[in-house]
């Protein structure tokens, strides 16, 4: 799992390390296989041929006139893609985290997404059955941490990161601002408890740390 929604919360440094390492046959679970924010975007894993399967909410450009590298490789059959509604995706992650075996959601009923899935009418409304989406590893990004692994996110950096931390066996977090001693973060204001976190690493300031993004992309 790779966190982030747009650049905020994207673990570009950890993803960069994965790119350098060249691990193959990955199954990548990510909102979107972006590849144009930086040289360490999740889409780069795909372009380098490291990916066997993708689970994502966007497997095409939002603009039908554009065709992304993702799509070219996908059309060529170079990897498998499972397209998942974003709310179903995070709910499936949460089910994996919370020991829920499966759940009925109204999302996707009557669409291609529902094909082949169990249907059930509950109180007159139709739902489909969806199963957990766990991972072996999650890479995420936060603003502050303590050495116990407690994390705080700033603004919309939070996004997928808390649920991915909970849904994966091992979670590595890259930290933008500071790693403090335990006790420095207010217990009332910890977004991800340290028991979900396995490794933390302070990332360097930009540009090396890749935590800014070209502002000319804001119109994307």
């Amino acid at each position, binding site marked *: 799992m790779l966190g982030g929604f*747009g650049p*905020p919360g994207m673990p570009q440094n950890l993803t960069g390390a994965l790119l350098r390492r060249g691990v193959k046959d990955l199954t990548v679970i990510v909102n979107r296989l972006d590849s144009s924010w930086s040289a360490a975007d999740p889409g780069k894993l795909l372009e380098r041929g490291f990916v066997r399967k993708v689970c994502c909410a966007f497997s095409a450009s939002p603009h039908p006139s554009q065709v992304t590298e993702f799509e070219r490789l996908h*059309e060529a059959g170079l990897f498998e893609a499972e397209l998942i509604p974003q*709310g179903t995706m995070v*709910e499936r992650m949460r089910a994996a985290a919370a020991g829920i075996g499966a759940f009925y959601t109204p*999302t996707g009923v009557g669409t291609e997404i529902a094909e082949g899935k169990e249907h059930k009418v509950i109180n007159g409304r139709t739902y489909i059955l969806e199963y957990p989406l766990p991972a072996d590893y999650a890479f995420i990004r936060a603003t502050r941490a303590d050495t116990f692994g407690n994390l705080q996110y700033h603004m919309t950096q939070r996004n997928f990161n808390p649920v991915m931390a909970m849904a994966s066996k091992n979670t590595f977090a890259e930290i933008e601002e500071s790693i403090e001693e335990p006790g420095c973060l207010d217990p009332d204001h910890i977004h991800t408890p340290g028991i979900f976190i396995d490794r933390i690493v302070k990332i360097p300031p930009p540009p090396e740390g890749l935590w800014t993004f070209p502002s000319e992309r804001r119109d994307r």
Partner: protein
Amino acid sequence: MEKQPLDRQTICNRLAMEFENDWVVNLGIGMPTLCANVPFGDRDIILQSENGLVGYGPLAKEGEENKNLVDAGAQYVTTRPGTAIVHHVDSFTIIRGGYVEVTVLGAYEVAENGDFASWKTAGRKGGGIGGAMDLAVGAKRVWITMAHTTRDGKPRLLKRCNLPLTAVGVVSMVATDYGLFEITSGGFVLKEFAPGYTPEEIQEITEATLTISPDLRKFQTRNK
């Protein structure tokens, strides 16, 4: 009267006029985000974005961006007094749980039975669902803003959708460059028309059969 299809901002203004005080509103990527540019006056509109923003402010000014504060379209936005941040799971709890009064989404096709298609185009293997399927079943109202026809002039207000559906029977209002349409159990009802066009001309570029509202009027451009 000069014939003048409506521009995107005017179309979005029209839908935004319908937002009521205290509504939680979710705007889809692209054209719908223009609904945020409308001065809401004394209406307090709570914009919600699926990446966890509850009650955000206008786009950030150049040079004043917070790198960690973007909306669903990855545009830099601002907070406003009362903004709250939640994580993605809670954000879709808000969405699927029925706390969103209206979502305004884009679409390729809308059908007279309220179906719409917005995530996959013909002949493409991939698609972009994002949060649209959750919004479509979760929000209390689904309104669509779109061009009335394809670039080569084919109708997009249809009897039945041709493209893969985003959701079934949920759309209640559509605003295009040719008018404002309600979807009722009887299909599309033309409520307001673009300057200079007759209902017959609008019907010509529409596959579905239009019912004409008894209150038919010119496309409204200012708040009630």
